[in-house]
């Protein structure tokens, strides 16, 4: 059953219009202007303004504040809805978290509605409400509490406003979890309260553990009451509803919300509704980003099967319920300042839903729901959720064919993940084989175990080319008197690439040690001031250990540090080796002088650009990018996070490669000052000239066991290349070779450059053109001009 159809640009096909509920829901969400909701910040502030509340144990304080939010935030049930619950008071909206990154964000308060990129609606009254809370939080937000020394504070302020070397996302909260929704829909909040009570009885009163369990009980009960509020609302709406069908639906919704999330779900619809309430609440607890439902096709399947067997559900109805859920996830957007928008463009929330792949016992888990989800992602093509598909040696041919059909047809979902490589990497990092097989992506591309990992996968992103700049100038930025790195060998004395490598490694070690100092202060601040009892009760290990996930209570505790622009850095190192030490075209000091002059010598620049680059199956060039990644990982391995876990390397850059590029000087690979770096693990822009097979061979030279936080590999095609059955087959074969030879992740972009150019010229004609940005999708119109240009560049492999 097809609810409605869209053409390849995501535009609804006219004659099918208004045929279905799902179409109407989608239209309502896509037409809504995103806005800022002040409910959470208002209620959070009122609670914290009471001095007695501020004196409570932080576990209790957070649980009670969140309980107040769930009790008093505005709730709505919109027309046609099957799955109910609103993240914010706006149809599409986001909240402010004043105690986290809220204050730096609020500095933009007068710009939100006027800015060009990702404007957010906020009324005069709401602006006033937000202004009122600034004084209270100005000296109380998390990052400020984290840094006690004035020197670190100044650096923090500079970093918050203008990060050059690295950006720490944890100062806005952690999140990035795939909660144990299987548990919630099985035992309900009552089950969780009972479990917490059992553990609490064994721990002494007024201990840290006791408070943690108390907090879990408070928030679990509050979540149940949140359901009751919708039950009451649905009941009331049913009474005044004139349409008898809708009246019946509302009564059923009331019944469902009365039962869950308090109790275990007794039907498929109850299960979906239950986890969606938790999805909303967790997004209001800490950072509202990358709270991931994860492997829905796996943990919902028993409920689906049971209802189907008892004839309480049809496949079409299940699809309608999941479509309604899917649309709901697009109703939340992050509220970012203009500066943060540059880093995380496209109003992306990172709610990953993963389908397919192995089950914990090693057999294939593809089922009916898997296929339903594939249909939904192809038909809806909305910003959220971020759909991932797992591929294993046991994936059925039908599954592979359907995915291939979608991708070559221009759907940019799902992104593909290779079970063989990822499970192996996770096991090497200490996961049990069963937990590793139960992985899902969170955020953009980062693998975690469903319901068991508390991995701050997006902890920080490092500007690696800038570290090379320091290595070429004894720890100073070009043209600066101030030393921002360590002291390393001056270029005049460098005799070989070994000297160059040593200098790079010295600067890398120095920057990462600075990062660790700042990051770990933030980790501790999160634990001390912003524990997360709700997230924790849905993460395996926290209740058993009586320890919040922010303090290391979960089973697995990693932190992901992103190595941004490894290819630009690797290519630059190779360009130095080739031009200075092999071809002897130029001396290293002269090269550095040219970099300071922004490569004003055109001949030199074109010579540098002509040197082989990563991505062309050239082993001498490729080995330098691999070197950068390996060194980065080795250096991270020297540290342990404050939750007792490892730091792991991720190769994705969100939209930060563009921002970092803008603030970084010229590089030996021929890139001029201010030009964008390449995204994720992509070759330097436009530098992969030998087509996708060569590119794949280059990518597969990377040791993916060193990139445990995931990679973002964009395979880009213009629509002409993949036309017809020949093209479809070629894509399928290309991907199967990539994965067979040990590729980790890929996402396919099939775009017509002409359409993108047209969309850039006339944004109004292409309101819902969805493109892959960096491990996630965004509407083309939501991107900055620079990012639009980059997507256009990407849209074709052959320039």
């Amino acid at each position, binding site marked *: 059953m097809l609810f409605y159809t869209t053409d390849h640009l995501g535009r609804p096909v006219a004659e099918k219009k208004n045929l279905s509920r799902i179409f109407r829901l989608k239209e309502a969400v896509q037409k809504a202007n995103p806005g800022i909701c002040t409910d959470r910040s208002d209620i959070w502030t009122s609670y914290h303004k009471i001095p007695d509340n501020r004196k409570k144990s932080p576990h209790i304080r957070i649980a009670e504040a969140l309980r107040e939010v769930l009790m008093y935030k505005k709730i709505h049930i919109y027309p046609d809805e099957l799955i109910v619950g609103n993240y914010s008071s706006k149809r599409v909206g986001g909240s402010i978290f004043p105690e986290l990154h809220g204050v730096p964000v609020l500095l933009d308060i007068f710009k939100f509605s006027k800015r060009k990129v990702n404007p957010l609606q906020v009324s005069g009254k709401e602006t006033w409400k937000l202004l009122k809370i600034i004084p209270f939080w100005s000296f109380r937000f998390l990052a400020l509490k984290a840094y006690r020394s004035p020197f670190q504070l100044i650096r923090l302020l500079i970093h918050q406003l203008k990060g050059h070397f690295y950006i720490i996302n944890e100062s806005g909260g952690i999140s990035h979890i795939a909660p144990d929704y299987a548990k919630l829909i099985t035992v309900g909040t009552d089950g969780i309260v009972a479990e917490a009570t059992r553990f609490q009885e064994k721990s002494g009163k007024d201990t840290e553990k006791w408070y943690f369990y108390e907090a879990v009980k408070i928030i679990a009960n509050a979540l149940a009451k949140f359901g009751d509020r919708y039950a009451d609302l649905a009941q009331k709406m049913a009474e005044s509803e004139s349409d008898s069908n809708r009246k019946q639906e509302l009564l059923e919704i009331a019944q469902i919300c009365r039962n869950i999330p308090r109790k275990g779900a007794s039907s498929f619809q109850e299960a979906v509704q239950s986890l969606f309430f938790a999805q909303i609440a967790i997004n209001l607890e800490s950072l509202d980003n990358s709270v991931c439902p994860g492997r829905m096709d796996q943990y919902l399947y028993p409920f689906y099967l049971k209802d189907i067997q008892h004839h309480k559900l049809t496949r079409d109805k299940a699809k309608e319920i999941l479509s309604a859920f899917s649309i709901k996830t697009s109703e939340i957007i992050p509220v970012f300042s203009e500066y943060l928008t540059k880093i995380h463009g496209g109003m992306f929330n990172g709610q990953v839903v993963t389908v397919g792949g192995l089950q914990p016992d090693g057999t294939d888990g593809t089922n009916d729901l898997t296929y339903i989800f594939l249909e939904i992602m192809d038909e809806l093509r909305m910003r959220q959720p971020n759909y991932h598909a797992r591929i294993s040696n046991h994936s059925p041919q039908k599954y592979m064919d359907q995915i291939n059909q979608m991708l070559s047809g221009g759907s940019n979902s799902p992104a593909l993940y290779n079970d063989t490589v990822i499970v192996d990497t996770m096991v090497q990092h200490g996961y049990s084989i069963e937990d590793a097989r139960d992985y899902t992506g969170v955020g953009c591309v980062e693998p975690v175990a469903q319901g068991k990992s508390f991995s701050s996968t997006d902890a920080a992103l490092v500007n690696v080319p800038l570290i090379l700049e320091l290595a070429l100038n004894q720890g100073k930025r070009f043209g600066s008197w101030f030393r921002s790195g360590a002291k390393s060998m001056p270029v005049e004395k460098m005799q070989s690439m070994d000297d160059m490598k040593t200098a790079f490694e010295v600067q890398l070690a120095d920057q990462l040690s600075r990062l660790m100092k700042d990051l770990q202060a933030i980790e501790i601040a999160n634990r001390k001031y912003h524990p997360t009892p709700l997230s924790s009760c849905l993460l395996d290990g926290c209740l058993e250990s009586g320890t919040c996930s922010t303090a290391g209570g979960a089973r697995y505790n990693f932190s992901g540090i992103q190595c941004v622009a490894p290819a630009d850095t690797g290519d630059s190192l190779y360009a130095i080796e080739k031009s200075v030490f092999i071809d002897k075209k130029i001396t290293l000091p002269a090269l550095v002088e040219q970099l300071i002059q922004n490569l004003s010598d*055109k*001949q*030199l620049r074109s010579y540098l650009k002509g040197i082989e680059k990563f991505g062309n199956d050239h082993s001498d060039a490729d080995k330098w990018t691999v070197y950068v990644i390996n060194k980065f990982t080795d250096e991270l391995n020297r540290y342990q996070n404050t939750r007792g876990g490892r730091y792991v390397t991720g190769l994705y850059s969100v939209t930060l490669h563009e921002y970092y590029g803008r603030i970084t000087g010229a590089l030996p690979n021929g890139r001029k000052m201010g030009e964008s770096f390449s995204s994720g693990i992509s070759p330097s822009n436009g530098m992969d000239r030998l*087509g996708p*097979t*060569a590119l794949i061979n280059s990518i597969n030279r990377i040791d993916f066991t060193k990139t445990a936080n995931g990679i973002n590999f964009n395979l880009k095609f213009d629509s002409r290349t993949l036309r017809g059955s020949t093209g479809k087959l*070629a894509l399928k074969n290309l991907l199967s*070779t990539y994965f*067979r030879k040990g590729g980790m992740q890929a996402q396919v972009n099939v775009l017509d450059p002409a359409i993108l150019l047209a969309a850039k010229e006339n944004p109004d004609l292409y309101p819902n053109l969805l493109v892959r940005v960096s491990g996630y999708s965004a509407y083309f119109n939501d991107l900055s001009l620079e990012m639009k240009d980059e997507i256009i560049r990407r849209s074709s492999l052959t320039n």
Partner: protein
Amino acid sequence: MNKDEPVHFFNDNTVIFDIQRFSLHDGPGIRTTVFFKGCPLSCAWCQNPESQNVRPELIFYKESCIQCFDCRKHCPENAISDHSMLRFDPKRCTLCGQCVTQCLTNSLRMIGKKWSAADLLGEIYKDIDFFIDSGGGITLSGGEPLLQANFLFQWLPMVKEKKIHTTLETCGLANWMQIEKLLPWIDIVFYDLKHMNDSIHKKFTGCGNAGILENFSRLSRSKSGLQARMPVIPGINNSVENIQATANFLKSNHHFSIHLLPYHNLGEAKLKRMYSQQHPMNIAPQNSEQLKQTQELFEKEKIHAVLYD
């Protein structure tokens, strides 16, 4: 290779002017197409005019030249000219390649590079995994690969030993004994039939068609993987008479299909960059309607015609 050296046919090395990976439309699966340099024909519509001469040759990209004239400083023959379209004087140039290595903007390029059999094998072998999974392989194109038959005698057995699928694209003008000797190493032959009229064929390609047609007939008797193709050149070979003649020829050889390659004028842009006697044809590329007509004419003659786009 100096231009005054006599042309000889290499045994263990050859001249290649391009290697294209991820080729999708020259045979089954994902393929690597190897473009050999040198062709016995000089078709007026040639898409790759730089492929005709068997020797390497110099071409000039005026749009990227920054007029630094570093090339002049290094040219031993004083062959660098001020001409804005062609930076070198072909009468003086000996193809020593000094200017090419000096040109930092890559505006002077040598078309055609010598490859040894081993190196060429290594290059195509890079995509072996893609060949295996997709049922692909290599396609010999050009130019005319058969012009380098002596090299192929050596090289193709090495390719076949690696179990790589091979496709040959040929104009058909070659010594039959050589073709016959190569057949065991070639899985598919794409064979161009340009025109059935000998004198028109000679006018537009520089050679008559007798040998080409004879080789086709012989091949159709001995080769199962043979496929006829025709570049459709508006006003030259898409007339009803020529199509009927081609269809009759195919049927007389028990061959019942043809692949139609639409003409486009992309190759003509390259003429300006090189020293060539050829002139652009200035024919407008045909629209899909006209191509469909050609296709239908073949179908009417009971020849299955596949249209490339």
